[in-house]
C-alpha cells in the first residue's frame, strides 16, 4: 500500500516538475506573442489593450522587410545546399564502403558539437581570407555548414531503415545504380529528406551567433537586426518580429513531425505483417 502511494506521489511530483519546466520554457514565448499585439507605445506586460500597430509598423519599415528578405535569401539556398550535400553524405555513409567512414561522420557532425561561438570565430577568420565576410554567399555557406549535420542525422536514420536488399533487387532487375537510387531508395527516404530540409530552414532562419560575425550593414538577416535593435531603443516591434519567427519555426517543426509519422508507418506496418490502412480494391 505504501509502495503504491509513494509511487503515485512520485508520479505526481514528476508531472508537477515537467509542468513547471514547460511553463518556464513556453511562457516567455507566449508573453512575446501577447506583447506583439500591445496597444502601449513601449514594452510592458500585461499590455493595456490590443492593437495591430506593431505589425503595421513592421511591414511599413524597410529595415525589417529588408532583413526578412535577406534572411529568406540566406535560408532557401543554404537549406537547399545542406539538404543536397547532407543527403548525399548520408547515403554514402550508409551504403558505400568508404575507408574512414566513422571519421568522416564525426567531422560532418562537428558543427553540432563544437560551441557555436568557436565555429563562428573560425568561419570569420577563414571567410575574411576568402573575402566572403559580409556577403550573402558567405552567410549561405555558413548556414549550410551548420545545418548539414542535422540533415545527415535525419537521413542516415531513414537509410538504416531501408533494407539494402531493395537496391540489390533493383540492380538485378535491370536498374543502374543511379536509377535504383532515384526509383527505390530516394522515394523511401524522401520524408526524411524533407524533414532535414525543414530543420535546415529553421536553423538558418533562427541563427544568430554566426550571423553576427559574418553579416555586414548591407547583408543583415532578421536575427541580427533584432539583436542590434534590442540593444538600442526597444519597442514592441521586436515582439512582433519575434512572434513571426516563432510562428515560422513552430509551423516548420509541426510539418516535420507530420512527415516523420509518415516515414515510420509503412515500415512498422510491414514489420509485423499486419494489413494497415488503404485500399484493397
Amino acid at each position, binding site marked *: 500500500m505504501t509502495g503504491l502511494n509513494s509511487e503515485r506521489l512520485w508520479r505526481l511530483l514528476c508531472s508537477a516538475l515537467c509542468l513547471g519546466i514547460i511553463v518556464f520554457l513556453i511562457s516567455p514565448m507566449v508573453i512575446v506573442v501577447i506583447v506583439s499585439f500591445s496597444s502601449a507605445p513601449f514594452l510592458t506586460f500585461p499590455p493595456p489593450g490590443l492593437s495591430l500597430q506593431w505589425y503595421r509598423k513592421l511591414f511599413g519599415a524597410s529595415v525589417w522587410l529588408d532583413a526578412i528578405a535577406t534572411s529568406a535569401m540566406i535560408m532557401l539556398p543554404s537549406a537547399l545546399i545542406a539538404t543536397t550535400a547532407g543527403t548525399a553524405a548520408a547515403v554514402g555513409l550508409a551504403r558505400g564502403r568508404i575507408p574512414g567512414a566513422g571519421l568522416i561522420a564525426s567531422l560532418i557532425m562537428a558543427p553540432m558539437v563544437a560551441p557555436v561561438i568557436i565555429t563562428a570565430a573560425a568561419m570569420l577568420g577563414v571567410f575574411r581570407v576568402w573575402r566572403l565576410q559580409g556577403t550573402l554567399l558567405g552567410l549561405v555557406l555558413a548556414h549550410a555548414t551548420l545545418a548539414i549535420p542535422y540533415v545527415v542525422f535525419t537521413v542516415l536514420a531513414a537509410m538504416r531503415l531501408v*533494407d539494402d*536488399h*531493395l537496391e*540489390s*533487387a*533493383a*540492380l*538485378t*532487375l*535491370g*536498374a*543502374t545504380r543511379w*536509377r535504383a537510387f532515384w*526509383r*527505390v531508395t530516394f*522515394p*523511401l527516404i524522401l520524408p526524411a529528406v524533407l524533414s532535414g530540409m525543414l530543420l535546415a530552414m529553421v536553423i538558418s532562419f533562427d541563427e544568430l551567433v554566426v550571423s553576427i560575425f559574418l553579416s555586414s550593414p548591407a547583408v543583415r538577416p532578421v536575427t541580427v537586426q533584432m539583436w542590434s535593435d534590442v540593444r538600442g531603443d526597444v519597442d514592441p516591434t521586436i515582439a512582433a518580429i519575434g512572434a513571426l519567427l516563432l510562428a515560422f519555426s513552430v509551423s516548420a517543426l509541426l510539418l516535420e513531425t507530420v512527415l516523420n509519422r509518415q516515414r515510420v508507418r*509503412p*515500415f512498422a*506496418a*510491414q514489420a509485423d*505483417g499486419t*494489413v*494497415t490502412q*488503404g*485500399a*484493397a*480494391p
Partner: protein
Amino acid sequence: MTGGLLQLNSVSKTFGDVVAVDRISFTLAEGEFLSLLGPSGSGKTTTLQMIAGLAHPTSGEILLAGRPIGPLPPYKRDIGMVFQNYALFPHMTVGRNVAFPLEMRDMSRPEISRRVAAILKLVDLPGFEDRYPRQLSGGQQQRVALARAIVFEPKLLLVDEPLGALDKRLREQMQLEIKHLHQRLGVSIIYVTHDQDEALVMSDRIGVFNQGRLVQIGTVEQLYEQPMTRFVAEFVGESNMVRGAVREAANGCYTLETDDGPLRGCAKQAFKIGSAALISVRPERLRLELAAVPDRDRDCIRGHICEVIYMGRLRKYVIETAGGHKLIVARQASGVEAKSFTVGDTVMATFAPDDAVVLQDTH
C-alpha cells in the same frame, strides 16, 4: 550452347582472412534445376550473389552463355533473382513492382501492362496489381517476388532460400509452384536451400556446400548412392558410419578392419592400404536377423536393440553394436518383410557390400 548456360571456373571469394567461397567450379545446363544445399554460412548465398553480380569473385571466372561476365554489372546480366526476404519495393504496388524490370528495359506502357497481367495470372495472383506488398501474406509476397524476377524472361533464375517464416505447408506449395514454373518456362534455376527434402523434391542436380567448398555435385541418386565424404552422406539422407582402417582393396571394393570386425564396401575414389576410412550404410539397406546366417554376400554386425521407434510405414531400430557403435536400421513396419524385434534382442545387422560406401574420414 553446348558448354552449358553457366559455368563457374575455380571461383573464390574472400572477406579479409575469411574464405567464404573456396575454388568452386560447376556447369549449369540450359533448362536445368540445380540446388545448392548446405548449412548456413557454407558459401552458397555468396556464390549466388557472385553469379548475380552483387558480389565479385576474388579469383576465378564466371561464364554466362560462354562469355565471361566478370566485368558486367548486375543490371546488364539479365539474371532474375528472388531474394531471401523477397525485397519487394514497399512504396510500389504489386503492379509497379512487377513492371519495374520492364520499365528499366524501356518497354511501352501497353506492353508492360499486358505482360504484368499475364505473369500475375501465371503465379495465381490475377488482379492484384493495385495492392501494396504489406497487404499480402508471406506466400503471396513470395509469388510477387517470383513474378518480378521472371517477367523479363531471364535465361537464368536464382532463388535464395525463402526465410523459414513460411510454414511447412506453404513452403511445399511454393516448391511445387517453382517446379511447375521451371517446367513451363524452361528457365534454368539455381535454388539455394539448407533443407535437404526441398532439394531432393525439386532438383535435377544438387551441389552440396560445406565450409565454402562445393563438396560434391550430382544427381540426387548419385549423392545418395555414392557420397564422396561423410558430410554428404550425412547431409543428404541418413547414414550409419563405422570407422576403420583399409585392409584390402580389389576393383573398387575395400575391406575395412573395424571394431565390429572386417566389413566390406565400395568406393569410386582410391584409398591406400592402412589409411583411415569410414564405411557408410543407409538405414534401409540394413537387414536384421536373430542369428547369423552364413552368407558370403552379406557382411554382418552383431549388436543388441536398445530402442524401437514406430513411425507408421517404417519401424526404426537403434542398435548398439559389439564394437560400441550406434546403428539405425529402418525396416518396413508391415507386409511380407515385417519381422518385429523388441528392446534387448540380440540381433545381426547385415548388408550387401554393394550397398555400403567407403568414405574419407574428413568433411
